[in-house]
């Protein structure tokens, strides 16, 4: 039982990390409508930034996050402005491959600049662990988990209640009409991409204390993040949280009780099974409005 609880807690904490990485992707995928294969590389960039600030200025990740997040916001906007925006009208598949090119580029740029070394941010506070009822967890992971919750709640609020959120949802649905009724579409795409990238940066910074930093550090997360977003439902932040937690729990429980070598298999199989039952994801709305007179 205590093994089960420990595995479950570990799984949920891991799920928090997945959710954290997925919320940014959810914005980019759900609003900007880009399957961003460079997502993991955004995480990787933030991890490197965290590492370098820590090694150069001994800056704690929990401080550098306030520098890195805005920087990555700008980075996301620049990307949107100069690479993605000019091809807003080309087919979605073409956009996929721009992001793929970007992913290859960023990964290898990191290799060119920093070499293949595996680096670690050593941050004692994040590594300290607490034990409650025989179940232990480190502060670093708990923080990531809590921030994931907060971010999801904040984004949920933003998307539902604020004007920005409404505009973003409108954009996600029909950007041409949004432009027609006077919404500065490009500006909001910049915002969405910036926001998505900034969220991703937060994820990168927060996992840096317990993950190694190397050129491929983010790549392993890309597919997982997609799985989480699709599983939870496009554009649905709560979905990403639930999806992340579900997959995290599946991963550790299957790993603990069946075989760790199969834990990722289990994650993908669960993903496929859930999609079969709910092709729009757990919280995805039904998309067939076409016959109702929309579009």
């Amino acid at each position, binding site marked *: 039982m205590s093994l089960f609880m420990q595995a479950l807690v570990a799984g949920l904490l891991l799920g928090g990390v997945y959710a954290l990485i997925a919320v940014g992707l959810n914005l980019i995928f759900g609003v900007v409508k880009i399957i961003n294969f460079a997502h993991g590389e955004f995480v990787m960039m933030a991890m490197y930034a965290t590492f370098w600030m820590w090694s150069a200025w001994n800056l704690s990740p929990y401080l550098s996050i306030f520098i890195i997040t805005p920087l990555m916001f700008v980075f996301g906007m620049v990307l949107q402005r100069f690479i993605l925006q000019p091809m807003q009208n080309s087919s979605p598949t073409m956009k996929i491959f721009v992001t793929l090119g970007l992913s290859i580029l960023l990964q290898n740029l990191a290799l060119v600049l920093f070499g293949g070394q595996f680096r670690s941010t050593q941050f004692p506070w994040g590594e300290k662990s607490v034990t409650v009822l025989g179940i232990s967890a480190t502060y670093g992971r708990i923080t990531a988990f809590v921030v994931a919750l907060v971010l999801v709640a904040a984004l949920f609020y933003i998307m539902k209640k604020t004007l920005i959120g409404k505009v973003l949802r409108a954009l996600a649905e029909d950007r041409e009409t949004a432009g027609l009724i006077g919404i500065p579409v490009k500006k909001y795409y910049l915002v969405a991409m910036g926001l998505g990238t900034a969220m991703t940066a937060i994820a990168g910074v927060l996992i840096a204390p317990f993950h190694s930093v190397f050129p491929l550090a983010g790549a392993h997360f890309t597919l997982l993040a997609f799985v989480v977003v699709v599983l939870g439902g496009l554009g649905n932040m709560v979905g990403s949280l639930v999806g992340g937690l579900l997959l995290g729990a599946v991963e550790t429980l299957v790993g603990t009780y069946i075989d760790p070598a199969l834990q990722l298999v289990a994650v993908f199989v669960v993903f496929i099974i859930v999609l079969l039952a709910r092709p729009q994801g757990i919280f995805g709305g039904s998309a067939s409005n*076409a*016959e109702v*007179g*929309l*579009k």
Partner: protein
Amino acid sequence: MDNTLLKVDNVSKRFGGVQAVGGVSLELEHGEIIGLIGANGAGKTSFFNLISGMHFPDSGTVEFDGDDITRLDTASRARCGIGRTFQVVRPFKGMTVAENVMVPLLVNDASVKTARKRAAELLEELSIGGLARKPAESLTLAQRKRVEVARALATGPKLLLLDEVLAGLNSREVIDVLPFVAKVRDRGVSILMIEHLVSAVMEVSDRILVLDHGVVISEGLPNEVVNDPKVIAAYLGKED
């Protein structure tokens, strides 16, 4: 032999909280044209979807040409002879108008050559022969509607479901098109048409069915129906 082509018995369909179709029955005979009118959201298109198999009814049955087709999928129904158009037109992008029409023709006829010829004829018949080589997405709404009709006709239907194909035509153009509808019927195709242009519906329909909130509120000969106070209240509005 029984002359009934389509027999819909008490079908219902609910979407979440909305009872889109609530127990509608209908018998349509060979060679008949029935007009279907009703307020927006009355459930007309949903009713079409139940007949054409885009959705399955929650209850009730659909019989076509003597067979129960309630559980048959769309494609099979189309093969049985139910052709439909979509209210929200759906031309195949990336294909020319002629190619659009070839798609259904190729279902039965494996030869691309004959399909191409037949498509040209059909388009000519709908007086859009000149558009045959244009990309389908470059047409205006009204043109797209005609392509939609051509495509439905190309399935070789016994029953044609027309969902607001006259919308977007001006009065003059409607007058041009109506005889075509009659001509199709004269070839032995039964027609069920949704239209908001009451004068047009009255002109070609043998009978009219009025839906409101998913139920039939009136049914009968065109003249009877338009004078029905319930129809006037729910649909036509008072003449001023």
